[in-house]
């Protein structure tokens, strides 16, 4: 998984390098042609793949490096809108969790987090009377009535049409009102310089992956919105070795187990196992369901 991530960033890098290189060639050839004669305008044509997978031919003199502002605007727009017609849900089977913590590692790698920063945190829930305990992975609950979104003064954190609550760390002013308002303690803050900040300094901000992280801003679980766009399961879900997580679309009423890849009906899974949501009495309407632990 992290291997794949590396690959894709390498691919990104190569793409950018290529475009920049072409840009440089174009610029120098333009210079050269300017020197020799004005008529040799028709230079080489270059084949390029557009963002919606169309092969196009462009005059090489027309090439210029990709503007990072445009990149940003594009990433922002798609990140804020979300995937139409979807309503993402997660089901966590507490019986299966053995505290392997692969989900936590996968998440922290993907989102460039320090070890103390958790978008997903496996908590040991102790029962004081019986002396027993069980493990409970806790992500952002992606509430349908999200208290964090209500209190945000600048619309940095927002709810998308597909039910995901995201944070825009280019908008966030770091007031931490959302941290105070979240009853699930789901949010974490970049108190210091983010992990590997130097390395990721020049990357364009991807609102769905929420990287690169920025000092002085809030960060949170994004339900791996970037992976969902590609039709893949979230990082944590596919990293789990124990079949704890189901993930899917409530509109389709189907969820897929990240380990077994078995797809089941959401409503049946919830009904048959007496699923519950965390602190239902608060009225936050979470999108994360829990199947009760064995006690």
């Amino acid at each position, binding site marked *: 998984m992290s291997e794949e991530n590396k690959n894709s960033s390498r691919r990104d890098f190569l793409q950018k390098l290529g475009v920049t290189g072409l840009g440089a060639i174009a610029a120098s050839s333009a210079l050269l042609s300017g020197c020799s004669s004005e008529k040799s305008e028709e230079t080489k044509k270059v084949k390029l793949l557009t963002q919606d997978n169309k092969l196009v031919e462009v005059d090489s003199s027309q090439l210029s490096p990709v503007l990072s502002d445009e990149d940003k605007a594009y990433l922002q727009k798609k990140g804020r809108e979300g995937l139409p017609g979807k309503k993402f849900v997660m089901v966590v089977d507490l019986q299966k969790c053995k505290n392997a913590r692969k989900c936590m590692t996968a998440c922290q790698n993907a989102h460039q987090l320090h070890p103390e920063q958790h978008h997903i945190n496996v908590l040991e829930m102790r029962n004081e009377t019986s002396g027993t305990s069980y493990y409970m992975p806790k992500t952002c609950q992606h509430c349908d009535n999200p208290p964090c979104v209500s209190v945000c003064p600048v619309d*940095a954190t927002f709810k998308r049409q597909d039910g995901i609550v995201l944070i825009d760390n280019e908008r966030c002013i*770091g007031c931490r009102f959302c941290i105070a308002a979240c009853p699930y303690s789901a949010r974490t803050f970049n108190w210091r310089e983010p992990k590997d900040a130097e390395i990721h300094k020049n990357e364009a901000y991807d609102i769905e992956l929420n990287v690169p992280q920025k000092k002085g801003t809030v960060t949170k679980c994004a339900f791996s919105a970037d992976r969902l766009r590609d039709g893949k399961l979230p990082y944590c879900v596919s990293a789990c070795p124990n079949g704890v997580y189901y993930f899917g679309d409530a509109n389709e009423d189907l969820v897929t187990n990240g380990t077994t890849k078995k797809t089941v009906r959401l409503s049946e899974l919830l009904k048959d196992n007496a699923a519950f949501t965390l602190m239902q009495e608060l009225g936050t309407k979470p999108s994360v369901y829990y199947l009760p632990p064995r006690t």
Partner: protein
Amino acid sequence: MIIENQKSISTIENDLLSSVNWSRNFKLWMGLLIVSLIVCLYFYFLQLRDGLSVTGLGDFVSWGLYISNFVFFVAASLIGMLITSVMGLLNIKWITPIARIAEILAIGFAMVAGLIIITDMGRPDRLHHVFMFGRVQSPIVWDIAIVITYVAISLMLYYIPLIPDIALCNKKLIGLSKFQRRIYKVLSFGWADKPEQFELIHKFSKILMVLIIPIAISIHTVTSWLFAMTLRAGWDSSIFGPYFVAGAFVAGCAAIIIAMYVFRTAFNLKDYITDMHFDKMGQLFVLVSLVYVYFNINEIIVPAYKLREGEATHLMSMLTGHNSFMFWLVQIGGLLIPFILLLFNKMRKPLPIMLISIVVLVAAWFKRYLIVVPIQEHPYMPIQNVPEKFMHYSPTTAEIAITVASFILFLIIVSFLAKLFPVIPVWEVKNELGHKNNS
């Protein structure tokens, strides 16, 4: 009634204008303040450079000293409204010589409160986002709007009754620098002591006095809503608005009594701010403390009776746990005992009441800390897999220094205003005297 021994108008003018100068002592005092401010601001520079990691804050207690201090400053600023407006509209005469002091405090506290909230931001460089992308749903936006409004109206309420005195300063004071004279000239707006001008002042002051009451109540109610609008056990309380406003008057009364004592001593105003004023302020203090005690009982006994899960952990930590020492010290030492003491005449003499006020003001500050911090140490979800530092909050040197900076800045504003203009409304005191002589 105001002035015990009869004084002529020119003596009053001389007495009250004598403080308007840049004496050696004042320059020393300002120098000291500015040097300490610069030292403290060095820590803010560190915070800007290294982020909020220089504070003791963590993902669980993410609001600490700064927000507690902000609540305290907003609270104390409400005194301006209580004295000038409420008492003024009730036509209570003895407040005349202290009304301007109340306004100076209100301006100082409210202005600095606005800055404190910026020190708490992770990204102060994005402050403009609040104006560009502000959302009306967010209590922070309400708070910013109302703090700005309150500062603006307080400034007007300070400035408008000051106009005749600025003109007087320009007329009577000798040896002013050219620059200062120009300031007086511009700010006095061609004041000529005409009856219709006085009428205008009365009219405008009255409008502002009415306006500022809902705004002052809103400013602190909205501040309380920063907490009450969340789902956290302990903050999720419907009496937070009035509870905060009542507490604000206690802190404000303590602040103004201290200020009265300081100005009376430093500016030699014993004939104007008399024992009677301290006595009356003491009585007002008793009244507001009583209201606050009542709200405290409500705020604690109601949830403590039920001990609902979530609230129970927080309450027990306050009543018997690791916050209990501070809690009981604040409630008993900082509220109950002062309240009982002030019931006695002797305790309302200037020196004792000033000392009591210092205790109350310090306790009021810690009370804000107790409202803001301990609740965050007990979230609904267990705190696990995080460094020890996140479990309990203890402020760092940087945080303390930046908080001290806010007090220094407050003192700078108050001292500067108190020396630039007379702290006691000269024309109003003269008027009072005129009435007395006529009757």
